[in-house]
């Protein structure tokens, strides 16, 4: 990993100095032990701050969207970053020619306090970048240690009342900070429905009903395009089981309309919910 870190620093420096890119997106060390924080810089000198270790927990993949005014940017991309970039590209948020993707294989990231593999990384099926312009080091081919839909099946198996209690409890904890939305590479609306006062989709009160409205609608809005990076769940300050909602939609699409996993290549078909088959599953006769 230290080799990769060195390579990152020198490549970032080269790219900035040559003027090939106008900014670089990576990680730097935080104040505390085993803490990292995103580093987004246009200064070649600052590239020496770049780090790569087992605590680079942030998915950087949404940042190119904020940097469109900068022109071309370089980003260090593991599986999750690369899929986020594909998401942004297929949603026409950014342009391919404006992002230079430097791939890095990912061994999985760890919690800075417990040292344990992050849940999102245990569930990750694509640690290595699925798209890149160049690759630093070797792919890691880290297998997922958690069955993709195990959590969903576990919850589904619960009696209805228990499921209701489980999610009601979860929604009751939500503080509506919208970290899940803002970190999500699928959430790219210019104005989120929650902020649309005229339509009044939901009110501003924090209560279970409104939080449920927000939670379920968010799933309907992103579920079919979710790249399963698990960032929403990681950033949630209230530890809501957000991926168990997102993945439920993926699980159903998978079962209903065929094997489904988005953002694995640039020429992916349209989302399962914006297309149809005449002989789709019929339950509403």
């Amino acid at each position, binding site marked *: 990993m230290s080799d990769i870190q060195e390579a990152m620093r020198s490549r970032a420096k080269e790219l900035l100095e040559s003027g090939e890119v106008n900014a670089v997106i990576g990680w730097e060390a935080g104040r505390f032990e085993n803490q990292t924080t995103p580093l987004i810089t246009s200064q070649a000198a600052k590239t020496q701050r770049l780090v790569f270790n087992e605590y680079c927990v942030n998915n950087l993949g949404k940042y190119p969207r904020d940097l469109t005014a900068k022109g071309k940017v370089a980003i260090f991309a593991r599986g999750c970053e690369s899929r986020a970039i594909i998401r942004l590209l297929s949603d026409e948020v950014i342009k391919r020619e404006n992002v230079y993707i430097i791939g890095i294989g990912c061994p999985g990231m760890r919690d800075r306090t417990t040292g344990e593999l992050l849940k999102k990384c245990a569930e990750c099926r694509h640690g290595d970048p699925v798209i890149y312009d160049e690759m630093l080091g070797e792919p890691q081919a880290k297998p997922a240690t958690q069955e993709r839909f195990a959590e969903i099946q576990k919850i589904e198996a619960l009696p*209805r009342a228990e499921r209701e209690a489980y999610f009601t409890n979860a929604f009751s904890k939500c503080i509506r900070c919208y970290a899940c939305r803002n970190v999500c590479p699928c959430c790219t609306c210019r104005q989120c429905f929650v902020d649309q006062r005229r339509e009044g989709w939901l009110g501003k009160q924090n*209560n279970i009903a409104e939080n449920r*409205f927000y939670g*379920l609608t968010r799933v309907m809005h992103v579920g079919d395009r979710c790249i399963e990076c698990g960032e929403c769940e990681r950033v949630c300050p209230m530890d809501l089981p957000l991926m168990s909602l997102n993945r439920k939609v993926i699980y159903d699409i998978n079962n209903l309309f065929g094997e489904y996993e988005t953002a694995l290549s640039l020429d992916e078909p349209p989302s399962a919910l914006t297309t149809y088959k005449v002989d789709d599953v019929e339950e509403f006769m």
Partner: protein
Amino acid sequence: MSMVETTPGAWEPKIVAFCCHWCTYTGADLAGLNRMNYPANVRVLRIPCSGRMNPQYALDALNKGCDGVLVCGCHPGDCHYSTGNYFARRRMLVFKRLLEYQGLEPERFQVRWISGAEAGKFRDTVTEVVEQVRALGPLHLNHELVLSGMEVE
């Protein structure tokens, strides 16, 4: 509210039916023409096509006091706009599963294809849904009412 007025004291289920203009709404009209009878608990909300059915309307209805939601459209293949109900079918399949997964009783959110000729099916569906929801009792999604300052039950 008005339901309570007619049968004081007794709870009556309140159900909103989102019906496409071209098929189900026509079928519901035909039920009227044929002087069929069905429970008055359903209020039909007309939309042009089941493809117009935004899941957010259903969430709003369930949040604010409906005990059940019914979504109806043309049979697949018969959509006036040719493909609207195909998209609706996919969306509703996923949405219904999501609602049930997070704890809603399946009976409270239902989808049916009812053609303009199927007055009987409209009557039967409405009757069935009302009875199923009646058996479940009131839906209290709103553990603290949206406006708990008013009408605290």
